[in-house]
């Protein structure tokens, strides 16, 4: 059932996907990001890591909830604005981002479902790319129950075998995507499977960073809530939103009304990303702020990822992609902070 796709035929697969919005990593001004693929022939999956993770396609930074406008009868009319259009296909999704989507699924699902997220999520097809070597110097997926060839959250997994890809269709959506371009693929041979498996096995030895022995960190964090540890660790934090906006698992958002016309009143209710690192995130209207300083906010970020989410969902809320480490302007390193928690003696 597994297939082979010659790299030279990759653009033919894309050309068969006219029914989808195709996203792939593109280099713009030295930064990789998932963008709508304008020219299928120009796409190459030879890239390390995007700045903004694949979450932005199932959970965009800005989306509309509904329109409101004043109606004649002194009331309002609301028009729901659920996402529509073509389903998305995202090529090149790293396994850590695939796993991250399964974690945001937990948040947006459950007893009460977020229709906007699920409309995109249910139709999106994630075509993953196994990491033969770590995309980032700060990758540590293995330490947080992930792996460079994990299939979690992905619909298809591609493994780069040199001049062709080993193609594993993992879900019904993935199988459908592969069958849309039928003749472009060839049956995989046992030798291909072996080659892919070797790449997967080797990739696990190549990560340069790890976060060891963190089983007891959730309990440790519980006891460190009032510790001055957080003051020391947060001293260089500049309270921007880079770590959280670029994190594949972070999901905090804001809801605001954007008014387009005052009279008659008309506008839209809009959802945008938000971050617990901004000072006013938790500030009450009265001015009272449960997290008034950087220490409290760094504590929240680490606690959410390594204690609260674990208590709620039995998973770390971190997939080890390393973006927060690479892109923090002042070098705050989540691996180092959690190691210090692990080794902390009060």
């Amino acid at each position: 059932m597994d297939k082979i796709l010659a790299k030279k035929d990759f653009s033919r697969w894309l050309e068969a996907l006219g029914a989808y919005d195709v996203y792939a990593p593109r280099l713009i001004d030295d930064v990789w990001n998932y963008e709508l693929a304008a020219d299928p022939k120009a796409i190459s999956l030879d890239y390390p890591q995007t700045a903004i993770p694949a979450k932005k396609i199932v959970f965009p930074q800005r989306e509309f909830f509904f329109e409101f406008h004043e109606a004649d009868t002194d009331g309002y009319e609301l028009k729901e604005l659920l996402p529509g259009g073509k389903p998305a296909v995202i090529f090149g999704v790293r396994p850590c981002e695939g796993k991250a989507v399964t974690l945001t699924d937990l948040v947006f699902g459950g007893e009460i479902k977020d229709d906007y997220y699920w409309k995109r999520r249910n139709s999106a097809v994630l075509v993953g790319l196994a990491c033969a070597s770590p995309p980032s110097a700060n990758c540590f997926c293995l330490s947080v129950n992930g792996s460079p060839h994990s299939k979690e959250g992905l619909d298809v997994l591609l493994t780069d075998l040199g001049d062709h890809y080993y193609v594993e269709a993992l879900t019904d959506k993935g199988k459908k995507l592969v069958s849309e371009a039928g003749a472009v693929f060839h049956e995989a041979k046992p030798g291909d499977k072996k080659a892919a498996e070797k790449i997967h096995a080797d990739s696990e030895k190549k990560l340069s960073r790890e976060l060891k022995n963190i089983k007891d960190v959730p309990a440790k964090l519980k006891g460190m809530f009032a510790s001055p540890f957080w003051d020391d660790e947060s001293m260089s934090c500049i309270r921007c939103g880079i770590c959280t906006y670029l994190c594949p698992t972070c999901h905090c958002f804001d809801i605001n009304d954007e008014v387009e016309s005052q009279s008659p009143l008309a506008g839209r209710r809009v959802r945008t990303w938000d971050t617990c690192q901004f000072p006013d995130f938790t500030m009450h209207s009265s001015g009272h702020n449960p997290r008034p300083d950087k220490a409290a906010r760094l504590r929240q970020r680490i606690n959410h990822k390594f204690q609260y989410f674990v208590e709620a969902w039995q998973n770390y809320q971190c997939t080890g992609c390393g973006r927060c480490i690479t892109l923090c302007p002042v070098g705050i390193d989540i691996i180092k902070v959690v190691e210090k928690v692990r080794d902390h003696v009060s």
Partner: protein
Amino acid sequence: MSANVYLPKLAQVISVKDEVGGVRAIKTFRTKFLAEGFTHRCGQCAMLSVFGKGESMISISSSPLVTDYLQFSILKMGRVTSAIHDLEVGSIIGIRGPYGNAFPIESWKGKNILFAGGGIGLAPIWSVLQTALLQKKDYGDLTLIYGARTSPDIVFKEELRDLKSKMTVHLSIDVAEPDWKEFVGFVAQNILDKKPSAVNTIAITCGPPIMIKTCIKALSEIGFKDEQIYTTVENKMKCGIGKCGRCNIGRHYVCKDGPVYSWAELRQLPQEY
């Protein structure tokens, strides 16, 4: 069939009452859904929408046994609550809910209930009080110990006058006033003064954070165990359904896992609220 959780239902304001005037104004609104609405349980809240301004999470203070309207008492605090205060009878707003958990009043049947409230804090526990009054034979003695900074700051003034004939009511204000005959001091001090019995009694307290803290301390002093004390917490909220990440205390989202907590539960959570 589940409707879009972020889409409010439209409702009309059917009455507006000035409870407290001045800079810290409080008004009580009653609303009626234009079409199908929802039922709630004591302690639950709803997100009120003023389109163009935003939403605010407010406790539903009417009893679930009252089906003609939903009642909300709102302190004018910022942008959205100021817009709510500008509403008139006939205004249309959006309401989505009910959100959060409820006071476990079923398990309180046969017990006495002590209500300790301060300022606007009477509104979130008013639904329990009204329900208990409507089902008086199911509950034991009902006592209210309520205070405000000054006598004009007391909410539900008329209702409190009526209440005195139906249950024990002890009122207080922080600083003495010429015509004030009842207790002068904080609600916590009034609790210690009146020493209500903790035997077979549940205490519910709500008010400004400092009042909740002092009342819990006072109640503990007079024999209430942690499991006997209940409160309702507030936090800045946006989605109301435990997804936007804003209102968490530890792993709990106040909008979903709260706002009702027993002190036994609340003291297990990080003290970050």
